[in-house]
């Protein structure tokens, strides 16, 4: 077998190793009892190393000029339709895949000590491996369908890691916010695939790029490009759907670093770079990219300045840089955007890992230099008039009321309509005047039988208990 074919097969396994590691850890959770931390860490480390070797193999394959379009067959075929398993290995995907592998290995090493004896230790490694598999699949995918699978895996693991400390209300509420944004914006990727299929009859990137050059059509190109831009906006926290990013910092520092500092938040930019040959066919979509990126950069930059905690400030700084990447993509500077992505992901990753020591770092810097960047910024800020300063400050501190507007004009009307229809149905069924009956808890068989008196007391008291208003708040 030729070396390049062997290497291509090994590269195709890059997303598989972390997934296998996750499955192994999940299987360790099936019997009762917590698996040993050391065993979990070793599995994760080994799986990520294999993933790293695969990514390295991808770079090697690019260097020796092997095949870039790896067609592995179909996942399933049925009734004139097939789901193709195809990977695309070019300079962009090979370099980003290697970046992912390196950062995941670093995160694994960091987290072994950082999360030692944390109750969610096993859960963290399980989710991190799944995230790694999703991210590698997203980057190496040669079709929108396959990319969507990675995209979903990344989204789901992100949400679960935001809610890592699930005993507190804050992280759980933040996870819901992330979920809502992701789910809504994921429609963009699906619609993009649907439109692409409709326009060019393929969703394989290489085929679509070739067909788009031949069958140029402004309207389908605009629909595809805008759909993909919408998907990218959600994943990369761009205006007006970027409110989830600072909230996502509720997770452990390691996950904040690898998800929202470096990898996940750049997935949107990667999508834009991947689909650049398609987006280029639509000037309107490119203009939209520039506007969205610029607005995000300005707003996030100002919000960063007024953030009181280090992780939120870092999150806004991330959104600012990603906004600039959107602008560069819109302007067609794809190489610059790629370099920006890799450099920013690496730098921000390190910065996020350092956030627990941010205050100490700032004091050390001040002690060494006598002044900091913040002091210089403050000096510039003083030159602006007081009224303008107040207005801008107010806007920045309220995050430009974007979330309030979305809640007011989107979430509340939908929830209101839902509740109104529900009331209408209940009236129709004449069930509205009946209190919701609380069923008597069942007697559970011994030896697990529950103390009836306590349960019944709780049931009776719950009849009178009013729901905590905070818990009823919709996302």
């Amino acid at each position: 077998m030729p070396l390049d074919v062997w290497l291509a097969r090994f590269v195709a396994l890059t997303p598989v190793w972390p997934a296998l590691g996750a499955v192994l850890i999940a299987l360790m959770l099936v019997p009762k009892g917590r698996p040993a931390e050391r065993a979990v860490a070793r599995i994760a480390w080994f799986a990520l190393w294999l993933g790293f070797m695969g990514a390295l193999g991808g770079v090697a394959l690019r260097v020796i000029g092997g095949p870039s379009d790896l067609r592995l067959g179909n996942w399933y075929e049925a009734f004139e339709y097939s789901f193709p398993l195809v990977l695309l290995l070019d300079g962009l995907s090979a370099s980003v895949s290697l970046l992912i592998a390196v950062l995941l290995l670093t995160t694994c090493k960091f987290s072994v000590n950082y999360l030692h004896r944390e109750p969610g230790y096993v859960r963290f490694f399980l989710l991190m491996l799944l995230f790694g598999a999703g991210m590698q699949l997203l980057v190496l995918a040669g079709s929108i369908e396959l990319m969507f699978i990675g995209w979903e895996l990344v989204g789901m693991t992100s949400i679960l890691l935001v809610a890592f400390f699930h005993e507190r209300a804050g992280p759980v509420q933040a996870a819901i916010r992330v979920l809502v944004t992701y789910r809504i914006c994921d429609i963009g990727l699906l619609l993009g695939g649907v439109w692409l299929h409709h326009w060019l009859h393929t969703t394989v990137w290489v085929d679509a790029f070739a067909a788009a050059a031949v069958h140029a059509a402004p309207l389908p190109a605009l629909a595809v490009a805008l759909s993909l831009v919408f998907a990218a906006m959600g994943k990369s926290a761009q205006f007006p759907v970027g409110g989830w990013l600072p909230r996502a910092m509720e997770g452990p520092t390691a996950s904040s670093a690898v998800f929202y500092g470096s990898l996940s938040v750049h997935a949107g930019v990667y999508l834009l770079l991947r689909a650049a040959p398609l987006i280029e066919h639509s000037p309107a979509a490119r203009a939209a990219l520039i506007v969205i990126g610029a607005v995000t950069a300005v707003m996030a930059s100002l919000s960063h300045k007024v953030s009181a905690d280090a992780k939120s400030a870092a999150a806004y700084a991330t959104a600012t840089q990603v906004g600039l990447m959107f602008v560069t993509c819109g302007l067609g500077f794809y190489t610059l955007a790629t370099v920006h992505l890799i450099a920013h992901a690496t730098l921000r990753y390190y910065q996020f890992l350092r956030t627990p020591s941010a205050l100490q770092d700032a004091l050390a810097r001040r002690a060494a230099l006598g002044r900091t960047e913040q002091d210089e910024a403050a000096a510039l800020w003083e030159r602006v008039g007081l009224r303008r300063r107040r207005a801008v400050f107010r806007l920045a501190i309220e995050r430009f009321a974007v979330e309030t507007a979305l809640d007011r004009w989107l979430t509340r009307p939908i929830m209101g309509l839902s509740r109104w229809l529900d009331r209408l149905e209940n009236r129709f069924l004449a069930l509205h005047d009946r209190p919701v009956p609380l069923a008597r808890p069942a007697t559970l068989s011994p030896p697990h039988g529950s103390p009836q008196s306590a349960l019944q007391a709780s049931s009776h008291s719950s009849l009178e208990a009013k729901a905590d208003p905070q818990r009823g708040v919709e996302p």
Partner: protein
Amino acid sequence: MSGLVLSLWLVPLLAAGVVQGLLHDPRQQRGVAIGVAWLVFAAALVLLVINGSDDAFARDDIELGPVFLSLHYHMAVDGLNAVLLPMTAAVALAALLSAPRSDLRGDTTARILVVEGALLGALLSFDAALLSLFWVASMVPLWQDTRRSGSRPLHVILTLAFGATIAALLVAVVLLGVHGAENGLPAPLDLLAISRAGVAPPAAVGWLFLFVGLLRMGIVPMHLWLTAAASRAPGYSAMLAVLTPLGSFALARVVMPLFPQVCEQASSPLVILGAVTAVYGALLAVGQHDLRRVLAYFWVSQMGLVLASLAALNAPSVAGALMQAMSSVVEVGGLMLIALEVEARAGTTDMRLLGGLVHRAPRMATGFLLLSAAAVGFPGTISFVAEDLAIQGLLRQHEVVAGVMLIVTAVNGITLFKAFKQTFLGPPSPHAERLRSFEDLRGWEHLVAVAMMGTLLVGGIVPAPLLAIRTGVVEALKRIELPDAPTTHEP
């Protein structure tokens, strides 16, 4: 083979009689019921392995001739019902294994067995009268339950649904009988004989079966009985009767192959109706506070997707719809079982009174999360494949509906995760804090959840066998594909 087919529906019905009439010890009742359910499940699996790859209407396994008047005993296993049989048996078994022993006394056990037997009988029937008889029988326990529930509105709405079903099926069977007599058909109610006779049966029969199918699926505005029953009727037996693919099965077994003219006329309106149902169900589900109501409306939304895909009348969409109808039963059934287990332990499914249960019940929380992910078509599950096929099929002629379905899927994902969060995550509510004795999934409950998740994952990762079983059915149904359907290139 005939014995297996016969035992599949007859044994649960006989066992129900034994449990109800002859046994008085609850432990014996439960033991017999579970033993019978295991046997039926095993028999259904054997039938799947032996017959599952056969084409629709190509098999004639059991033919005992007229039994009573024109009631023709004709039952068979083909690609359409082969998977539904073990799945229905498995859900019945899961309900019996998961139900608390205090709930599983003679009445409930017998009802579950009756519903199981009736559903299996309906799925096996190739005879219109027999199908109608089993169809009605599968609703009787639910109707009786609501009569005893003390909720008059619930009983009224169930009586209306039950009465409408009986009336429609009765008229349809009479019309078919008259038609057969007029045309001299030897077996006027035999679906296979009708399809081969070359004389088109009256379109009114098709419309009546369509109505009954839509009613059973819970298509808007005929969903009220379903949501009311799923959220208010006694849980375990109601779950089996409500969360069943019988409605979509009737469309694929009776309406689509025998009444192509009805399908052609109704295709576009049904696609739109399916989309409206999907949106309506999703919209109602997202605003609910009660876990059982969330799942009821989620089911309605899923059935909207199934209807729209079936009505699109092309091979991928029909294959996707049939697969989605099947996987929805496992997913929503599994979620409903967990909701009932929460209710049994906490005394409520009002999510405002729950919260933070993951500490006490991590397995239950994991099961709910994974089943929710499967239910909204997370990659690697059966629903992903089903929705992918359905959307690809819808795209051929109904691009807007395909887009709407994508939005519905996104909203449904939000709904189920929100329900998960409110029930299992966050700080416990004052009510939940008092549930010191709230237990995690025990023995069989845990195994049932694992089996359901395993089925969905294995079927999703390796979907080829499931798709192969339905190939014959879909090929047969392709006969009614709309002539002007444009073909698209493949990726």
